[in-house]
Protein backbone atom coordinates (compact mmCIF):
# COMPACT_ATOMS: atom_id res chain seq x y z
CA UNK A 1 0.00 0.00 0.00
CA UNK A 2 2.71 2.47 1.02
CA UNK A 3 6.34 1.99 0.17
CA UNK A 4 8.88 4.29 1.75
CA UNK A 5 12.26 4.16 0.04
CA UNK A 6 15.33 5.70 1.67
CA UNK A 7 13.91 9.04 2.67
CA UNK A 8 16.01 11.79 4.25
CA UNK A 9 14.80 15.01 5.80
CA UNK A 10 16.81 17.73 7.49
CA UNK A 11 15.34 20.82 9.14
CA UNK A 12 17.50 23.95 9.18
CA UNK A 13 15.21 26.19 11.23
CA UNK A 14 15.66 26.98 14.09
CA UNK A 15 18.82 24.85 13.95
CA UNK A 16 20.00 21.94 11.90
CA UNK A 17 18.24 18.71 12.84
CA UNK A 18 18.41 15.46 10.91
CA UNK A 19 14.79 14.39 11.29
CA UNK A 20 14.90 11.40 8.95
CA UNK A 21 18.00 9.49 7.94
CA UNK A 22 17.61 6.80 5.29
CA UNK A 23 14.22 5.56 6.42
CA UNK A 24 12.61 2.76 4.43
CA UNK A 25 9.47 0.84 5.18
CA UNK A 26 6.57 -0.95 3.66
CA UNK A 27 3.02 -0.71 4.98
CA UNK A 28 0.63 -3.42 3.82
CA UNK A 29 -3.13 -3.19 3.42
CA UNK A 30 -4.96 -3.90 6.68
CA UNK A 31 -1.83 -3.49 8.79
CA UNK A 32 -1.76 -1.47 12.00
CA UNK A 33 1.69 0.06 12.35
CA UNK A 34 2.60 1.80 15.57
CA UNK A 35 5.53 4.23 15.49
CA UNK A 36 7.14 4.96 18.84
CA UNK A 37 10.24 6.71 19.99
CA UNK A 38 11.49 9.55 22.18
CA UNK A 39 10.49 13.10 21.26
CA UNK A 40 12.55 14.53 18.43
CA UNK A 41 13.17 11.08 17.00
CA UNK A 42 11.54 11.94 13.66
CA UNK A 43 8.43 9.81 14.05
CA UNK A 44 6.01 12.67 13.40
CA UNK A 45 8.06 13.82 10.42
CA UNK A 46 7.95 10.28 9.06
CA UNK A 47 4.16 10.25 9.37
CA UNK A 48 3.77 13.72 7.85
CA UNK A 49 5.89 12.68 4.87
CA UNK A 50 3.40 9.92 4.07
CA UNK A 51 0.84 12.47 2.84
CA UNK A 52 3.40 15.10 1.85
CA UNK A 53 2.68 17.54 4.68
CA UNK A 54 6.47 17.44 4.73
CA UNK A 55 8.55 16.89 1.62
CA UNK A 56 11.53 14.56 1.93
CA UNK A 57 14.90 15.87 0.77
CA UNK A 58 15.77 12.56 -0.90
CA UNK A 59 14.03 9.30 -1.44
CA UNK A 60 10.70 8.15 -2.66
CA UNK A 61 7.31 7.35 -1.20
CA UNK A 62 4.92 5.29 -3.30
CA UNK A 63 1.27 5.29 -2.29
CA UNK A 64 -0.50 2.57 -4.30
CA UNK A 65 2.38 2.82 -6.74
CA UNK A 66 2.09 6.61 -7.13
CA UNK A 67 5.22 8.62 -6.34
CA UNK A 68 3.84 11.38 -4.11
CA UNK A 69 6.93 13.58 -4.36
CA UNK A 70 6.67 13.66 -8.15
CA UNK A 71 5.59 17.21 -9.10
CA UNK A 72 3.21 15.72 -11.68
CA UNK A 73 1.26 13.85 -9.00
CA UNK A 74 -1.98 15.52 -7.95
CA UNK A 75 -1.41 15.38 -4.22
CA UNK A 76 -5.02 16.30 -3.44
CA UNK A 77 -6.37 13.07 -4.89
CA UNK A 78 -3.73 11.10 -2.96
CA UNK A 79 -4.56 12.92 0.28
CA UNK A 80 -8.28 12.35 -0.19
CA UNK A 81 -7.58 8.62 0.24
CA UNK A 82 -5.56 9.20 3.42
CA UNK A 83 -7.25 10.34 6.61
CA UNK A 84 -5.16 12.25 9.12
CA UNK A 85 -5.75 12.90 12.79
CA UNK A 86 -3.64 15.48 14.61
CA UNK A 87 -2.43 15.87 18.15
CA UNK A 88 -4.20 19.23 18.48
CA UNK A 89 -7.41 18.05 16.72
CA UNK A 90 -7.41 21.03 14.32
CA UNK A 91 -11.18 21.12 14.00
CA UNK A 92 -12.48 24.11 12.04
CA UNK A 93 -13.76 26.46 14.77
CA UNK A 94 -16.04 28.46 12.44
CA UNK A 95 -18.05 25.38 11.45
CA UNK A 96 -20.41 23.21 13.45
CA UNK A 97 -19.48 19.59 14.15
CA UNK A 98 -21.65 18.54 11.23
CA UNK A 99 -20.00 21.21 9.06
CA UNK A 100 -16.56 19.91 10.03
CA UNK A 101 -17.44 16.39 8.94
CA UNK A 102 -19.25 17.37 5.73
CA UNK A 103 -17.10 20.15 4.24
CA UNK A 104 -14.42 18.01 2.64
CA UNK A 105 -17.02 15.51 1.44
CA UNK A 106 -18.80 18.30 -0.37
CA UNK A 107 -15.72 20.07 -1.72
CA UNK A 108 -13.46 17.14 -2.54
CA UNK A 109 -15.78 14.16 -3.01
CA UNK A 110 -18.47 16.40 -4.57
CA UNK A 111 -21.19 14.70 -2.56
CA UNK A 112 -24.59 16.32 -2.19
CA UNK A 113 -25.57 18.04 1.05
CA UNK A 114 -27.98 15.24 1.93
CA UNK A 115 -25.55 12.45 1.16
CA UNK A 116 -22.67 14.03 3.06
CA UNK A 117 -24.85 14.79 6.08
CA UNK A 118 -26.15 11.23 6.21
CA UNK A 119 -22.59 9.94 6.07
CA UNK A 120 -21.52 12.43 8.74
CA UNK A 121 -24.35 11.49 11.10
CA UNK A 122 -23.59 7.81 10.66
CA UNK A 123 -19.95 8.37 11.58
CA UNK A 124 -20.74 10.72 14.46
CA UNK A 125 -23.05 8.04 15.89
CA UNK A 126 -20.26 5.55 15.45
CA UNK A 127 -17.78 7.63 17.46
CA UNK A 128 -20.52 8.31 20.04
CA UNK A 129 -21.29 12.02 19.57
CA UNK A 130 -24.32 12.03 17.29
CA UNK A 131 -26.15 14.29 19.73
CA UNK A 132 -23.51 17.04 19.37
CA UNK A 133 -23.81 17.41 15.60
CA UNK A 134 -24.97 21.02 15.77
CA UNK A 135 -22.61 22.16 18.53
CA UNK A 136 -19.43 24.09 17.77
CA UNK A 137 -15.98 22.59 18.43
CA UNK A 138 -15.27 25.04 21.26
CA UNK A 139 -18.16 23.54 23.24
CA UNK A 140 -16.76 20.00 23.17
CA UNK A 141 -14.23 18.34 25.46
CA UNK A 142 -10.85 17.35 24.08
CA UNK A 143 -11.82 13.71 23.79
CA UNK A 144 -15.01 14.58 21.97
CA UNK A 145 -13.12 16.90 19.63
CA UNK A 146 -10.63 14.19 18.78
CA UNK A 147 -13.43 11.75 18.04
CA UNK A 148 -14.99 14.33 15.72
CA UNK A 149 -11.59 14.67 14.03
CA UNK A 150 -11.53 10.90 13.49
CA UNK A 151 -15.06 11.01 12.06
CA UNK A 152 -14.02 13.90 9.82
CA UNK A 153 -11.14 11.85 8.44
CA UNK A 154 -13.29 8.74 8.02
CA UNK A 155 -15.95 10.69 6.13
CA UNK A 156 -13.69 10.72 3.08
CA UNK A 157 -13.69 6.88 2.99
CA UNK A 158 -9.91 6.76 3.26
CA UNK A 159 -7.90 3.66 2.49
CA UNK A 160 -5.46 4.45 5.29
CA UNK A 161 -5.60 6.47 8.49
CA UNK A 162 -2.63 8.38 9.87
CA UNK A 163 -2.65 9.26 13.57
CA UNK A 164 -0.15 11.84 14.83
CA UNK A 165 -0.07 11.42 18.63
CA UNK A 166 -3.87 11.56 18.84
CA UNK A 167 -4.03 11.24 22.62
CA UNK A 168 -1.05 13.37 23.70
CA UNK A 169 -3.04 16.57 24.16
CA UNK A 170 -5.87 14.90 26.08
CA UNK A 171 -6.66 14.77 29.76
CA UNK A 172 -5.98 11.26 31.06
CA UNK A 173 -9.64 10.39 31.57
CA UNK A 174 -10.40 11.11 27.92
CA UNK A 175 -7.64 9.02 26.38
CA UNK A 176 -9.68 5.82 26.70
CA UNK A 177 -12.61 7.01 24.63
CA UNK A 178 -10.35 7.96 21.72
CA UNK A 179 -8.33 4.73 21.91
CA UNK A 180 -11.59 2.75 21.89
CA UNK A 181 -12.58 4.34 18.61
CA UNK A 182 -9.15 3.56 17.18
CA UNK A 183 -9.36 -0.04 18.35
CA UNK A 184 -12.74 -0.46 16.67
CA UNK A 185 -11.25 0.88 13.46
CA UNK A 186 -8.33 -1.54 13.66
CA UNK A 187 -10.70 -4.46 14.23
CA UNK A 188 -12.65 -3.46 11.15
CA UNK A 189 -9.49 -3.92 9.14
CA UNK A 190 -8.52 -0.28 8.51
CA UNK A 191 -4.91 0.25 7.50
CA UNK A 192 -3.44 2.52 10.17
CA UNK A 193 -0.17 4.22 10.99
CA UNK A 194 -0.15 5.58 14.54
CA UNK A 195 2.49 7.70 16.17
CA UNK A 196 1.73 7.31 19.84
CA UNK A 197 3.04 7.03 23.35
CA UNK A 198 0.29 4.62 24.34
CA UNK A 199 2.22 1.39 24.86
CA UNK A 200 -0.92 -0.48 25.86
CA UNK A 201 -2.49 0.40 22.55
CA UNK A 202 0.67 -0.59 20.67
CA UNK A 203 0.80 -3.96 22.37
CA UNK A 204 -2.89 -4.73 22.07
CA UNK A 205 -3.76 -3.43 18.59
CA UNK A 206 -0.49 -3.08 16.69
CA UNK A 207 0.53 -5.61 14.08
CA UNK A 208 3.98 -4.12 13.91
CA UNK A 209 5.92 -1.67 16.05
CA UNK A 210 8.55 0.67 14.63
CA UNK A 211 10.95 2.24 17.08
CA UNK A 212 12.68 5.38 15.86
CA UNK A 213 15.52 7.34 17.37
CA UNK A 214 17.52 10.25 15.94
CA UNK A 215 15.79 9.99 12.59
CA UNK A 216 16.50 6.30 12.09
CA UNK A 217 14.43 3.15 12.42
CA UNK A 218 16.29 1.44 15.21
CA UNK A 219 14.18 -1.61 15.65
CA UNK A 220 10.93 -3.01 14.34
CA UNK A 221 8.89 -6.12 14.84
CA UNK A 222 5.72 -7.60 16.26
CA UNK A 223 4.63 -6.20 19.61
CA UNK A 224 5.46 -9.45 21.41
CA UNK A 225 8.99 -9.46 20.06
CA UNK A 226 9.39 -5.74 20.57
CA UNK A 227 8.26 -5.49 24.16
CA UNK A 228 9.61 -8.83 25.40
CA UNK A 229 12.86 -9.34 23.54
CA UNK A 230 14.20 -6.01 22.26
CA UNK A 231 17.60 -6.41 20.65
CA UNK A 232 18.89 -2.86 20.40
CA UNK A 233 20.33 -1.11 23.45
CA UNK A 234 18.51 2.14 22.74
CA UNK A 235 15.20 0.27 22.55
CA UNK A 236 15.95 -1.38 25.85
CA UNK A 237 16.77 1.95 27.45
CA UNK A 238 13.62 3.60 26.05
CA UNK A 239 11.39 0.77 27.24
CA UNK A 240 13.02 0.82 30.64
CA UNK A 241 12.28 4.54 30.95
CA UNK A 242 8.63 4.39 30.01
CA UNK A 243 7.45 1.02 31.32
Amino acid at each position, binding site marked *: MIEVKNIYKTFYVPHEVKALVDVSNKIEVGEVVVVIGPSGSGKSTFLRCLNRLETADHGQILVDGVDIFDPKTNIN*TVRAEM*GMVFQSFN*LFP*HLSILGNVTI*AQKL*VRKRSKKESEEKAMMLLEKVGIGDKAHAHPANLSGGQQQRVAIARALAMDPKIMLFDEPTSALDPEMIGEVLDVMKTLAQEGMTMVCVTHEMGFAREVGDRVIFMDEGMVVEEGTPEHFFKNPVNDRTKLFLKQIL
Partner: protein
Amino acid sequence: MELKASNIKRLSNPTAYNLSVLGFIAFVILVVGSVYYATITVEYQWRWFKIPKYFMYQETIRLYAEEDGEIDTIKENGKKIDILIQQEDGLKTYTVPKGSFNWDEGDMTSHGDLIAEYSGSWRMGLMALGVLTTLKISVIATILGIFLGIIGGVARVSDTPVLKWSAITYVEIIRGSPLLVQIMIFYFVLGTTINKILAMNGLPTLDPEWYGIAALSIFTGAYVVEIVRAGIESIHPGQIEAARSSGMNPFQTMFHIILPQALKTILPPLAGQFINLIKDSSLLGMISIRELTKATREGITTSLQTFELWILCAILYLIMTFTLSMFVQWLERKGARR
Protein backbone atom coordinates in the same frame (compact mmCIF):
# COMPACT_ATOMS: atom_id res chain seq x y z
CA MET B 1 -21.51 46.76 38.41
CA GLU B 2 -21.02 43.52 40.30
CA LEU B 3 -20.57 41.62 37.04
CA LYS B 4 -17.57 43.67 36.03
CA ALA B 5 -15.78 43.09 39.30
CA SER B 6 -12.12 43.88 39.14
CA ASN B 7 -9.51 44.75 41.66
CA ILE B 8 -9.08 48.24 40.25
CA LYS B 9 -10.63 50.71 42.64
CA ARG B 10 -13.63 52.46 41.17
CA LEU B 11 -15.88 55.23 42.41
CA SER B 12 -18.03 53.17 44.69
CA ASN B 13 -19.83 56.10 46.29
CA PRO B 14 -22.89 56.96 44.09
CA THR B 15 -22.70 60.65 44.98
CA ALA B 16 -19.06 60.86 43.94
CA TYR B 17 -19.92 59.03 40.73
CA ASN B 18 -22.79 61.40 39.88
CA LEU B 19 -20.66 64.42 40.67
CA SER B 20 -18.04 63.11 38.30
CA VAL B 21 -20.66 62.76 35.54
CA LEU B 22 -21.77 66.33 36.20
CA GLY B 23 -18.14 67.39 36.01
CA PHE B 24 -17.88 65.93 32.53
CA ILE B 25 -21.05 67.69 31.36
CA ALA B 26 -19.80 70.96 32.85
CA PHE B 27 -16.49 70.55 31.03
CA VAL B 28 -18.21 70.04 27.67
CA ILE B 29 -20.47 73.05 28.24
CA LEU B 30 -17.46 75.14 29.26
CA VAL B 31 -15.54 74.29 26.08
CA VAL B 32 -18.50 74.88 23.74
CA GLY B 33 -19.47 78.03 25.63
CA SER B 34 -15.97 79.49 25.44
CA VAL B 35 -15.81 78.93 21.71
CA TYR B 36 -19.22 80.52 21.30
CA TYR B 37 -18.25 83.48 23.48
CA ALA B 38 -15.01 83.95 21.55
CA THR B 39 -16.91 84.08 18.24
CA ILE B 40 -19.29 86.68 19.67
CA THR B 41 -16.26 88.73 20.72
CA VAL B 42 -15.01 88.83 17.13
CA GLU B 43 -18.56 89.82 16.11
CA TYR B 44 -19.46 86.71 14.18
CA GLN B 45 -23.13 86.63 13.25
CA TRP B 46 -24.52 83.14 13.84
CA ARG B 47 -27.32 82.37 11.41
CA TRP B 48 -28.23 78.77 12.02
CA PHE B 49 -31.78 79.44 10.80
CA LYS B 50 -30.40 79.72 7.27
CA ILE B 51 -28.98 76.19 7.41
CA PRO B 52 -32.06 74.01 6.63
CA LYS B 53 -32.15 75.26 3.07
CA TYR B 54 -28.83 73.53 2.48
CA PHE B 55 -30.67 70.25 2.97
CA MET B 56 -34.09 70.89 1.47
CA TYR B 57 -35.50 73.97 -0.17
CA GLN B 58 -38.51 74.85 -2.22
CA GLU B 59 -37.40 76.34 -5.49
CA THR B 60 -38.81 79.71 -6.54
CA ILE B 61 -40.05 79.97 -10.09
CA ARG B 62 -40.06 83.40 -11.74
CA LEU B 63 -41.63 84.02 -15.12
CA TYR B 64 -40.48 87.03 -17.10
CA ALA B 65 -42.06 88.58 -20.15
CA GLU B 66 -40.09 87.83 -23.27
CA GLU B 67 -41.45 90.74 -25.29
CA ASP B 68 -43.46 93.90 -24.87
CA GLY B 69 -47.21 93.36 -24.85
CA GLU B 70 -50.60 93.92 -23.27
CA ILE B 71 -52.53 91.65 -20.89
CA ASP B 72 -55.45 90.46 -22.89
CA THR B 73 -57.37 88.13 -20.59
CA ILE B 74 -56.98 86.65 -17.12
CA LYS B 75 -59.14 83.59 -16.71
CA GLU B 76 -59.43 80.59 -14.41
CA ASN B 77 -58.21 77.29 -15.70
CA GLY B 78 -59.15 74.68 -13.11
CA LYS B 79 -57.09 75.38 -10.00
CA LYS B 80 -54.67 77.62 -11.89
CA ILE B 81 -54.98 80.83 -13.80
CA ASP B 82 -54.17 81.52 -17.43
CA ILE B 83 -52.73 84.92 -18.28
CA LEU B 84 -53.03 85.65 -21.98
CA ILE B 85 -50.72 88.36 -23.21
CA GLN B 86 -51.05 89.99 -26.63
CA GLN B 87 -47.57 90.26 -28.03
CA GLU B 88 -46.28 91.23 -31.44
CA ASP B 89 -46.29 87.70 -32.74
CA GLY B 90 -49.67 86.82 -31.26
CA LEU B 91 -51.30 85.69 -28.01
CA LYS B 92 -49.06 84.03 -25.46
CA THR B 93 -50.43 82.02 -22.50
CA TYR B 94 -48.78 81.75 -19.09
CA THR B 95 -50.34 79.24 -16.67
CA VAL B 96 -49.59 80.22 -13.06
CA PRO B 97 -51.01 79.51 -9.55
CA LYS B 98 -53.47 81.92 -7.98
CA GLY B 99 -52.04 84.85 -6.10
CA SER B 100 -48.63 84.60 -7.72
CA PHE B 101 -49.03 87.80 -9.79
CA ASN B 102 -50.22 91.34 -9.55
CA TRP B 103 -51.66 92.23 -12.95
CA ASP B 104 -55.01 93.34 -14.28
CA GLU B 105 -56.48 92.98 -17.72
CA GLY B 106 -55.36 95.85 -19.95
CA ASP B 107 -51.98 96.38 -18.19
CA MET B 108 -49.01 96.96 -20.42
CA THR B 109 -45.99 94.67 -20.00
CA SER B 110 -42.53 95.31 -21.29
CA HIS B 111 -39.68 92.94 -22.05
CA GLY B 112 -38.16 91.57 -18.84
CA ASP B 113 -41.11 92.32 -16.55
CA LEU B 114 -41.82 89.82 -13.81
CA ILE B 115 -45.09 88.20 -14.70
CA ALA B 116 -45.42 85.76 -11.83
CA GLU B 117 -43.43 84.39 -8.92
CA TYR B 118 -44.40 81.21 -7.13
CA SER B 119 -42.98 78.25 -5.23
CA GLY B 120 -42.07 75.17 -7.21
CA SER B 121 -41.25 71.68 -6.00
CA TRP B 122 -38.98 70.72 -3.06
CA ARG B 123 -35.37 70.12 -4.00
CA MET B 124 -32.34 68.75 -2.23
CA GLY B 125 -29.92 71.36 -0.99
CA LEU B 126 -26.18 71.61 -1.57
CA MET B 127 -25.11 69.83 1.62
CA ALA B 128 -27.58 66.97 1.12
CA LEU B 129 -26.27 66.46 -2.40
CA GLY B 130 -22.73 66.57 -1.03
CA VAL B 131 -23.53 63.90 1.56
CA LEU B 132 -25.12 61.71 -1.11
CA THR B 133 -22.07 62.03 -3.37
CA THR B 134 -19.72 61.25 -0.49
CA LEU B 135 -21.81 58.21 0.46
CA LYS B 136 -21.99 56.97 -3.10
CA ILE B 137 -18.24 57.34 -3.61
CA SER B 138 -17.46 55.73 -0.25
CA VAL B 139 -19.73 52.74 -0.78
CA ILE B 140 -18.39 51.97 -4.26
CA ALA B 141 -14.78 52.52 -3.18
CA THR B 142 -15.29 50.33 -0.09
CA ILE B 143 -16.64 47.44 -2.15
CA LEU B 144 -13.83 47.75 -4.70
CA GLY B 145 -11.29 48.17 -1.88
CA ILE B 146 -12.41 44.97 -0.14
CA PHE B 147 -12.28 43.15 -3.45
CA LEU B 148 -8.76 44.39 -4.23
CA GLY B 149 -7.64 43.82 -0.65
CA ILE B 150 -8.76 40.20 -0.49
CA ILE B 151 -7.26 39.35 -3.88
CA GLY B 152 -4.06 41.19 -2.93
CA GLY B 153 -3.97 39.64 0.55
CA VAL B 154 -4.31 36.13 -0.83
CA ALA B 155 -1.64 36.90 -3.43
CA ARG B 156 0.58 38.38 -0.72
CA VAL B 157 0.74 35.10 1.24
CA SER B 158 1.14 32.98 -1.89
CA ASP B 159 4.44 31.25 -2.66
CA THR B 160 4.25 32.11 -6.35
CA PRO B 161 6.62 35.03 -7.12
CA VAL B 162 4.35 36.59 -9.76
CA LEU B 163 1.52 36.89 -7.25
CA LYS B 164 3.53 37.63 -4.14
CA TRP B 165 5.83 40.20 -5.72
CA SER B 166 2.98 41.90 -7.56
CA ALA B 167 1.14 42.29 -4.26
CA ILE B 168 4.24 43.62 -2.47
CA THR B 169 4.93 46.11 -5.28
CA TYR B 170 1.33 47.31 -5.25
CA VAL B 171 1.29 47.80 -1.49
CA GLU B 172 4.67 49.52 -1.27
CA ILE B 173 4.05 51.90 -4.17
CA ILE B 174 0.60 52.94 -3.00
CA ARG B 175 1.50 53.29 0.67
CA GLY B 176 4.59 55.29 -0.17
CA SER B 177 2.96 58.38 -1.66
CA PRO B 178 0.28 60.80 -0.46
CA LEU B 179 -3.31 60.10 -1.45
CA LEU B 180 -3.68 63.63 -2.79
CA VAL B 181 -0.82 63.08 -5.23
CA GLN B 182 -2.33 59.78 -6.32
CA ILE B 183 -5.69 61.44 -6.93
CA MET B 184 -3.95 64.06 -9.08
CA ILE B 185 -2.11 61.37 -11.06
CA PHE B 186 -5.29 59.39 -11.52
CA TYR B 187 -7.22 62.36 -12.77
CA PHE B 188 -4.71 64.51 -14.61
CA VAL B 189 -2.39 61.80 -15.94
CA LEU B 190 -4.41 58.62 -16.30
CA GLY B 191 -7.71 60.43 -16.68
CA THR B 192 -6.51 62.68 -19.46
CA THR B 193 -4.89 59.78 -21.30
CA ILE B 194 -7.82 57.41 -20.97
CA ASN B 195 -10.40 60.03 -21.86
CA LYS B 196 -8.38 61.01 -24.94
CA ILE B 197 -8.15 57.42 -26.08
CA LEU B 198 -11.87 56.96 -25.46
CA ALA B 199 -12.69 60.11 -27.42
CA MET B 200 -10.41 59.09 -30.30
CA ASN B 201 -12.39 55.87 -30.60
CA GLY B 202 -15.70 57.70 -30.49
CA LEU B 203 -16.59 56.44 -27.02
CA PRO B 204 -18.07 58.54 -24.21
CA THR B 205 -15.47 59.84 -21.75
CA LEU B 206 -15.52 59.04 -18.03
CA ASP B 207 -16.54 61.50 -15.32
CA PRO B 208 -13.92 62.68 -12.81
CA GLU B 209 -15.97 60.82 -10.20
CA TRP B 210 -14.83 57.47 -11.58
CA TYR B 211 -11.16 58.45 -11.48
CA GLY B 212 -11.68 59.60 -7.91
CA ILE B 213 -13.33 56.32 -6.97
CA ALA B 214 -10.52 54.39 -8.66
CA ALA B 215 -7.86 56.35 -6.76
CA LEU B 216 -9.62 55.89 -3.43
CA SER B 217 -10.27 52.17 -3.83
CA ILE B 218 -6.75 51.43 -5.01
CA PHE B 219 -5.35 53.43 -2.08
CA THR B 220 -7.60 51.69 0.45
CA GLY B 221 -7.03 48.30 -1.20
CA ALA B 222 -3.30 48.54 -0.46
CA TYR B 223 -3.96 48.91 3.26
CA VAL B 224 -6.61 46.18 3.18
CA VAL B 225 -4.03 43.83 1.61
CA GLU B 226 -1.86 44.14 4.70
CA ILE B 227 -4.86 43.73 7.03
CA VAL B 228 -6.00 40.61 5.17
CA ARG B 229 -2.46 39.24 5.21
CA ALA B 230 -2.20 39.71 8.96
CA GLY B 231 -5.59 38.02 9.34
CA ILE B 232 -4.55 35.04 7.23
CA GLU B 233 -1.26 34.70 9.08
CA SER B 234 -3.07 34.73 12.41
CA ILE B 235 -4.79 31.44 11.54
CA HIS B 236 -3.07 28.46 13.12
CA PRO B 237 -1.08 26.42 10.54
CA GLY B 238 -2.85 23.31 11.86
CA GLN B 239 -6.03 24.56 10.19
CA ILE B 240 -4.30 24.57 6.82
CA GLU B 241 -2.79 21.14 7.45
CA ALA B 242 -6.17 19.73 8.43
CA ALA B 243 -7.81 21.15 5.33
CA ARG B 244 -5.06 20.14 2.93
CA SER B 245 -4.70 16.65 4.38
CA SER B 246 -8.37 16.00 3.65
CA GLY B 247 -7.69 16.68 -0.01
CA MET B 248 -8.83 20.29 -0.33
CA ASN B 249 -6.83 22.32 -2.82
CA PRO B 250 -5.18 25.61 -1.79
CA PHE B 251 -8.06 27.63 -3.22
CA GLN B 252 -10.74 25.70 -1.29
CA THR B 253 -8.62 25.88 1.86
CA MET B 254 -8.31 29.64 1.52
CA PHE B 255 -11.95 30.43 0.83
CA HIS B 256 -13.67 27.82 3.00
CA ILE B 257 -11.31 27.49 5.96
CA ILE B 258 -8.88 30.38 6.32
CA LEU B 259 -10.71 33.51 5.15
CA PRO B 260 -13.95 32.84 7.10
CA GLN B 261 -11.88 32.57 10.27
CA ALA B 262 -9.61 35.49 9.40
CA LEU B 263 -12.62 37.74 8.82
CA LYS B 264 -13.29 37.87 12.53
CA THR B 265 -9.83 39.21 13.38
CA ILE B 266 -9.67 41.64 10.48
CA LEU B 267 -13.07 43.23 11.00
CA PRO B 268 -11.98 45.95 13.51
CA PRO B 269 -8.93 47.18 11.54
CA LEU B 270 -10.99 46.95 8.36
CA ALA B 271 -13.63 49.23 9.88
CA GLY B 272 -10.92 51.75 10.75
CA GLN B 273 -9.72 51.66 7.17
CA PHE B 274 -13.18 52.37 5.78
CA ILE B 275 -13.76 55.17 8.24
CA ASN B 276 -10.54 56.64 6.87
CA LEU B 277 -11.89 56.17 3.37
CA ILE B 278 -14.98 58.24 4.13
CA LYS B 279 -12.78 61.01 5.49
CA ASP B 280 -10.24 60.75 2.66
CA SER B 281 -13.00 61.20 0.11
CA SER B 282 -12.90 64.89 1.09
CA LEU B 283 -9.76 65.19 -1.04
CA LEU B 284 -11.75 64.45 -4.18
CA GLY B 285 -12.97 68.03 -4.18
CA MET B 286 -9.57 68.79 -5.70
CA ILE B 287 -10.60 67.17 -8.97
CA SER B 288 -13.94 68.98 -9.12
CA ILE B 289 -16.06 66.23 -7.62
CA ARG B 290 -18.71 67.95 -5.53
CA GLU B 291 -18.61 65.78 -2.44
CA LEU B 292 -19.41 67.09 1.04
CA THR B 293 -16.28 69.18 1.58
CA LYS B 294 -16.43 70.80 -1.83
CA ALA B 295 -20.16 71.41 -1.38
CA THR B 296 -19.40 73.14 1.92
CA ARG B 297 -16.81 75.35 0.29
CA GLU B 298 -19.24 76.30 -2.44
CA GLY B 299 -21.93 77.03 0.12
CA ILE B 300 -19.57 79.34 1.98
CA THR B 301 -18.59 81.20 -1.19
CA THR B 302 -22.19 82.21 -1.75
CA SER B 303 -23.49 82.60 1.81
CA LEU B 304 -20.41 83.59 3.84
CA GLN B 305 -21.72 81.41 6.69
CA THR B 306 -18.24 80.05 7.26
CA PHE B 307 -18.58 78.89 10.86
CA GLU B 308 -21.97 77.21 10.55
CA LEU B 309 -21.20 75.34 7.37
CA TRP B 310 -17.78 74.02 8.40
CA ILE B 311 -19.14 72.83 11.75
CA LEU B 312 -22.08 71.26 9.97
CA CYS B 313 -19.72 69.60 7.52
CA ALA B 314 -17.72 68.05 10.37
CA ILE B 315 -20.88 66.85 12.09
CA LEU B 316 -22.12 65.20 8.90
CA TYR B 317 -18.81 63.33 8.50
CA LEU B 318 -19.03 62.32 12.15
CA ILE B 319 -22.52 60.92 11.64
CA MET B 320 -21.36 58.85 8.68
CA THR B 321 -18.24 57.47 10.37
CA PHE B 322 -19.99 56.85 13.68
CA THR B 323 -22.79 54.92 11.98
CA LEU B 324 -20.25 52.74 10.21
CA SER B 325 -18.36 52.13 13.42
CA MET B 326 -21.57 51.15 15.26
CA PHE B 327 -22.51 48.83 12.41
CA VAL B 328 -19.17 47.05 12.58
CA GLN B 329 -19.42 46.70 16.36
CA TRP B 330 -22.81 45.10 15.86
CA LEU B 331 -21.30 42.71 13.29
CA GLU B 332 -18.53 41.81 15.71
CA ARG B 333 -20.97 41.04 18.51
CA LYS B 334 -23.04 38.98 16.13
CA GLY B 335 -19.91 37.06 15.13
CA ALA B 336 -18.79 36.58 18.73
CA ARG B 337 -22.12 35.12 19.78
CA ARG B 338 -21.66 32.10 17.53
